[in-house]
């Protein structure tokens, strides 16, 4: 037993059926997995003991990811590989622990997220996407204060765009900053609204990386 519980960060992926689990349900699913894993997780001492789990920026329902993070505390030191292995033995399919370590940076330092986006489309429309993303991107954003029009282009950076095998795909950096936050569906909605070939097209979104302000350093 440690005198002070150790902080642990687990990096994990969320794919398959798990894409359709909300942030809240993910929390419940992980809590059950903790109990199944029998890892020495630290619990709050109150009337209703629970592990204090903190998750990285919420993922929209329907988006898969290979770079999710959760922080919790442990009462004993357990080797990182063992944490990963025991969690994976308790996680449902679609949830996979990738690595466990002591947190290097705080969640508030997350500035950008890299996404891969694919649209099912019969024609190569990558030039149209490039053109669209080079100018201002005005979208309607509905918040507590009602609907307002905002330009999401300052929080959007196109890294790559191409087309193969019936899929128009792009790689983008989207801002995770509190005021400039751009959710992936804001962008995909904007694209499919303005490019007629994409009207009603099936669209896939995958979070590839979570980065700090320099757009290079991976969050850990």
């Amino acid at each position, binding site marked *: 037993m440690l005198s002070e519980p150790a902080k642990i960060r687990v990096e994990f992926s969320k794919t*398959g*059926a*798990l894409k*359709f*689990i*909300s942030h809240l*349900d993910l929390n*419940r*699913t992980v*809590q*059950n*997995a*903790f*109990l*199944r*894993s029998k890892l020495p997780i630290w*619990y709050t001492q109150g*009337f*209703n*003991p*629970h592990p204090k789990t903190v998750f990285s920026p919420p993922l929209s*329902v*329907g988006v898969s990811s290979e770079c999710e993070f959760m922080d919790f505390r442990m009462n004993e030191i357990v080797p990182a590989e063992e944490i990963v292995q025991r969690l994976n033995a*308790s996680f*449902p*399919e*679609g949830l996979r622990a990738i690595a466990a370590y002591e947190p290097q940076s705080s969640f508030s330092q997350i500035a950008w997220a890299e996404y891969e986006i694919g649209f099912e489309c019969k024609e190569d429309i990558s030039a149209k996407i490039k053109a669209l993303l080079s100018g201002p991107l005005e979208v309607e954003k509905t918040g507590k204060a009602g609907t307002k029009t905002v330009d999401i282009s300052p929080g959007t950076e196109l890294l790559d765009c191409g087309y193969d095998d019936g899929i128009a795909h792009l790689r983008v950096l989207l801002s995770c900053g509190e005021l400039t936050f751009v959710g992936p569906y804001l962008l995909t909605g904007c694209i499919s609204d303005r490019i007629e070939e994409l009207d*009603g097209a*099936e*669209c*896939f979104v995958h979070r590839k990386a979570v980065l700090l302000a320099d757009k290079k350093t991976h969050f850990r």
Partner: protein
Amino acid sequence: MKIPESILKKVQKPARYTGGEWGQIVKPREGMAARVAFCFPDTYEIGMSNIGMRILYDVLNKCENIACERCFAPWDDMEEQLREHKIPLCTLENSDPLYDFDIVAFTLQYELCYTTMINMLELGGVEILSSNRKNDDPLVLVGGPCTFNSEPFADFVDACIIGEGEEVIVEFTNLYIEHKKAGFDREKFLHEAAKIEGVYVPAMYKTEYNDDGTIKSFEPIYQDVPRTVRKRIMKDMDKSPYPEKFIVPFIQTVQDRITLEVYRGCIRGCRFCQAGQIFRPVREKSVEVLCDQARKLADSTGYGEMTLSSLSISDYTCISKLTDELLKWTDDEKISLSLPSLRVDSFTKELMDKISTVRTGTLTFAPEAGTQRLRDVINKNVFEDDLYRACRVAFEGGKSQVKLYFMQGLPTETDEDLDGINALCEGVIDTFYNTPGRVKKAPQVTISCACFIPKPFTAFQWEPQCDMDELLRKQQYLKGKIMNRKIRYNYHDATVSRIEAVFARGDRKLGAALLEAHKRGMRFDSWEEFFSYEKWLEVFDACCIDPAFYANRERAEDEILPWDNIDIGVTKEFLLREKHNAHAGKATPNCREKCAGCGANKLGGERACCPSLQK
């Protein structure tokens, strides 16, 4: 057929439709001797809370050559998408349409789900009428408490399981496998299936009616088909299969915890209660077996809460020992224990201290009626003082809120009995203020009043339900009587209760109404947002059916009742005796005090409470 992601993104709670939960069993499509689609005619959240479905899913999948997959009713947003894109309703495990299965099984837990069952059949590409199904179409099998009167939905199902299904569902499926090997003939198979104890095949029986609409005769069409179908029970609950693994849903369900079934049946004989009769005789599990089951489920699910389940948990003979044993490890494992419905006469401080870890601040008791006279009529053997004593225990333990369940419209009920409900609530509030050591805040008594619905296999099966006007008047009357703002009065929608009453004691003629309702797009009748009394009245009108014939008519004691061919062990003579006792205001002691001779002991049973069964 997987549901496209574009559709999943459009609907509420897509995780209802994706499967893939921890504990799910996926068997290969090929190489199975029989595949069963186990359907629950309500939403995922309700269906996944049902313990019967969990048990049978486990039982069937434990058979090497049988695969069992789950299917739930899609919410209206998903139904719209399925219809628009012509996608059939599929199971969660392998995403296969219902029409692809050998057996499509439904568990029917309440009458208002019948329309949803029919809708699911249609969405799953299964012919809805039994008589129209072809040789190779799936067999539609139903079970659950509603099958004790299967007549209203008899037209839509091929076979019904009467009673506890653990053994008989396997026997039925194995018989199917045998017949399939030999070249399947539907009619021949059903004829044979009707001979399995606990299986009722509606098509094997013919009903004739008198001019007044009552039943004239009810006969099997073949000599070798039994006249009466006896329900099945699991004689030894210690040996009865119970899953070691539960599926752990991703989304919150109604019963999102470990359910430990402690015993079956009930020693009480409340005269309105169907469960108390159809699950007789009482059969307990031993503490050792329960602890083992609890341990395994805690390890395999990772749930942080466990509830002890049965009809009246405080009546379990070893409740103290069981909770002691469980509490030895549950705290350390971060598991909190909870208990459902408590009886006021067996609720003790000791029991409450043990469950003090429960998160809700409210305790629930069910006095059911407001005066001692009426409680004697319904055989709810609790007294005013029991309630006040139980409340005092709760208040001393730091609670300030109590929830009380009552029924309105019970046989012989007068306005005085309704006044009694109010007086009882006032008494609970006085008890609160007179309890030394109570918390320093205002008490709250919430009363929830259901409308009495006469059910088959109860002492009140002959009784009329109060008509609508009278039910509404009673509700308004009590509303007007309650002046204390610390009493919150909730009551059920009387129109819903009336439709439930129609189907509870319905006969086969109601099949026409269900068909008509289905044609009009009706389903999810237990949901406020979908239920429409007006639509139901229109349906009955269109089918020339008088709902009052079923809901509000007093049955003669010698009338042939639609469920008379079902033998639940408890005899009709006993129920009749209980009816007469009710009208005489005479209480009947519970099974442990004195055997009332109900007849259920002929079914046998280990660790039963019937004196005649104790060895």
